[in-house]
């Protein structure tokens, strides 16, 4: 894929993933985030949450992976990614990650991608925008 092949409106995903509590704990530990809300249902409930939640950075990392998987081994790189955490993401659910190309900038050989994470009810839990730059 070259920059010239990137079309506004092209869909990325959808990709369905099941995130378990163990995987959430593994992420939290690998990132030095040992707060109970990320590792333990009871601890999370004491903080007023319905149970364990994914760290925001984990959601960001899953969306980053969606973009870098789309880039694959093409001569391009993700240079920016912004996220907004709208609703806490809970483990032991199937999440859908997807996006679509919203803009292309021939002068800089960059494209912008709207990305988001949905739950089983198609509620958008995390939304964001990524910028990918293609080599000349």
């Amino acid at each position, binding site marked *: 894929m070259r920059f010239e092949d990137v079309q506004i409106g092209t869909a990325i995903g959808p990709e369905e*993933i099941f995130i378990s509590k163990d*995987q959430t704990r*593994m*992420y939290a*530990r*690998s*990132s*030095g985030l040992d707060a109970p809300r990320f590792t333990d249902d009871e601890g999370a409930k004491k903080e007023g949450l319905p149970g364990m939640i994914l760290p*925001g*950075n*984990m959601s*960001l*990392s*899953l969306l*980053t*992976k969606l973009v*870098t*998987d789309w880039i*694959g*081994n093409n*001569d391009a*790189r*993700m*240079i*920016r*990614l*912004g*996220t*907004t*955490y709208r609703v806490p993401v809970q483990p032991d659910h199937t999440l859908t990650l997807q996006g679509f190309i919203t803009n292309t900038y021939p002068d800089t050989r960059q494209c912008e991608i709207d990305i988001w994470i949905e739950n089983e009810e198609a509620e958008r839990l995390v939304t*964001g925008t990524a910028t990918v730059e293609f080599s000349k």
Partner: protein
Amino acid sequence: MVDFDPELINRIFETTEPVPVTREKIAKFCAAIGETNPLFTDDEAAKKGPYGGVIAPPSYATTFRNGRHFFQHVPRYGRAGMDAGKDVEIIAPIRPGDTISLSSAVKEIYDKTGRSGTMVFVVVRSTLRNQKNEIVAHIDHRFMNRP
């Protein structure tokens, strides 16, 4: 309009001690997010790639923590802040063998009133540098507080 000391903005209070990046840490991070891209996971394949070896996935930049005393300098508005989102700008790859230090400052403070009431947002900008003092990433963390 939210009240704060304008002198606070963009002032660096603390730069962290360098944190080593190891191949093992990158592998654990990749395992936790289900990452299988050879650029991040396969030494042999990555050698032939654009970076000449394995690099960390871009989101690995978010694993570096602020200095222990940083938040003493950040004003609080009501209950503890909630992570509302992040903007990550990736400038250079992070590689095994790098050491990363992080310096942070309050970039901006603003309020917003919505249906659920007034929210105060504190944006903290962290700048990550490697052992060559090259900037590898900027991360803007948005913390939301309810006064």
